[in-house]
């Protein structure tokens, strides 16, 4: 197998079996959910709030769009409770673009997720950008046929989300700030923690690996598989504060499989150009000449101004961290 199926539930409710004519068709398997995430690799998922933005994103080469009611930057400014996007807006997009459509629901809000599954979105993001509905628990994602993506800022969070059934991980970063530093911190943290358990695994020290798994609050099985692979067992994207082609290249060079761009594109003054430039830099992240060409396509005077992440009133990354 080219995809790890570690931590799969024995009998997930999200699996649907149907026999049509001569074929038995099985839906919602771990392979199909994680496989969908693998198809997004080396791509850019762009946050959008309406059909016009979705069309611009598709034309620029976005691999998928993420539908929100407000961009993270505006969520921060508006305050109040941030909830899942309007069903109508999502449905309009489904009739307008051919690429996958993802949408966010609140952490632990199983019924917002059920609505998104019924609408037919391709992936659900259980996201800290929205106001958490459950401080104790995340959604039990094995009950869904639709795959999920979750945020994480360290290895323990990432593996716990995978054990709950998510098919893809992204760094949390600090959304809506136009500042990539938190995303960098999170991917470095995950990489360093994996490096540590990998060296324990290579020394065949089962007892120490078990201790590490307990510290991470995850099962031995998933810790061992992650250590063996030397990477997360699912696709891992960067997210939170990516604004320029150079930001995308930086995170790809740190080992991310692709990037999410939130406010960075549609809160800039050159969204169409910038969207294409970020796509180009994500594919050719290791080629400084092409990243430079991509960077030339954007005007720094038109970038989202951004903010210092040290003095934020709201730290979205801390949402759901104890679950």
């Amino acid at each position, binding site marked *: *197998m*080219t*995809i790890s199926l570690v931590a799969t539930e024995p009998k997930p409710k999200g699996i649907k079996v149907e026999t*049509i*004519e*001569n*074929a*038995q*068709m*099985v*839906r*919602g*398997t771990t*392979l*199909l959910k994680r*496989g*969908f995430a*693998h*198809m*997004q*690799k*080396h*791509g850019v998922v762009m946050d959008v709030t309406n059909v016009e933005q979705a069309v611009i994103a*598709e*034309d*620029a*080469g*976005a*691999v*998928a769009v993420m539908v929100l009611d407000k961009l993270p930057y505006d969520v921060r400014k508006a305050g109040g409770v941030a909830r899942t996007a309007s069903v109508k807006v999502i449905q309009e997009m*489904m*009739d*307008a*673009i*051919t*690429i*996958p459509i993802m949408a966010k629901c609140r952490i632990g809000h199983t019924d917002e997720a059920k609505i998104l*599954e019924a609408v*037919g*979105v*391709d*992936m659900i993001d259980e996201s800290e950008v929205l106001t958490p509905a459950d401080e104790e628990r995340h959604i039990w994602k094995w009950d869904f*046929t*639709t*795959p999920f993506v979750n945020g994480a800022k360290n290895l323990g969070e990432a593996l716990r989300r995978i054990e709950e059934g998510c098919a893809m991980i992204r760094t949390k970063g600090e959304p809506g700030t136009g500042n990539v530093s938190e995303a960098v911190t999170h991917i470095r943290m995950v990489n360093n923690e994996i490096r540590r358990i990998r060296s324990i695994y290579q020394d065949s020290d089962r007892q120490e690996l078990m201790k590490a798994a307990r510290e991470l609050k995850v099962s031995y099985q998933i810790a061992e598989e992650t250590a063996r692979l030397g990477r997360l067992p699912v696709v891992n994207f960067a997210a939170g504060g990516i604004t320029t082609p150079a930001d995308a290249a930086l995170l790809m060079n740190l080992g991310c499989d692709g990037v999410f761009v939130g406010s960075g594109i549609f809160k800039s003054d050159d969204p169409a150009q910038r969207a*294409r430039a970020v*796509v*180009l830099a994500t*594919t*050719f992240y290791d080629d400084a000449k092409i990243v430079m060409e991509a960077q030339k396509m954007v005007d720094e005077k038109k970038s989202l101004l951004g903010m210092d992440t040290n003095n934020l009133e709201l730290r979205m990354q801390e949402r759901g961290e104890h679950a």
Partner: protein
Amino acid sequence: MTIGVLGLQGDIEENVAATSQALQELHVNGTVDIVRYTEELEKIDGLILPGGESTVQSTLAAIQRSLPAIKKRISEGMPVLGSCAGMIMLSKRAYDRIIGDTKQKLLGNLDIVVERNAFGRQNDSFEADLSLAMLGKEAFRGVFIRAPAVSEVGKDVEVIGKLNNRIVVVKQKNIIGTAFHAELSGDSRMHKHLINMVLQFKNKNGS
């Protein structure tokens, strides 16, 4: 031999892994390279167009101006396997089930018309056993992710596999197109078939 995997977007590494496994099982000496630049196309004996989003792959190939070079190598007889998005890239015409014709640029080497997202969205993605005589008696596990289907075939195109009367695998001389992801099933027979085509191609060219 050197097999290239087009490395713009999608499940590139998974195809590299599946091809390496197939080479090993066949005891064939060869390397698998990720190909992103036009000049790299000259160094390969076979090509895989991976799964992913066909609109993204064709947008990037157009920016890189590599479409004519890929098209030329394939029309010269170099074996190629396109899965899902890769098959869409190879086709003459593609339209979306809901949206209709799209603006995306295609290679057009494979004389088929493809319906994109033919089985529906991700919730309709499925696994199913396929009977593919080309690969032997044992069923092939098809992994269909937002998969396309072939709606029309030209006269030189051989239908290799069907699922409930929808065409899902086709072959036209040196070109194979599959609606599903052979690289995800753990079954290396499709990639082995490509390697055998490459061996024949190299023998014929006396290299």
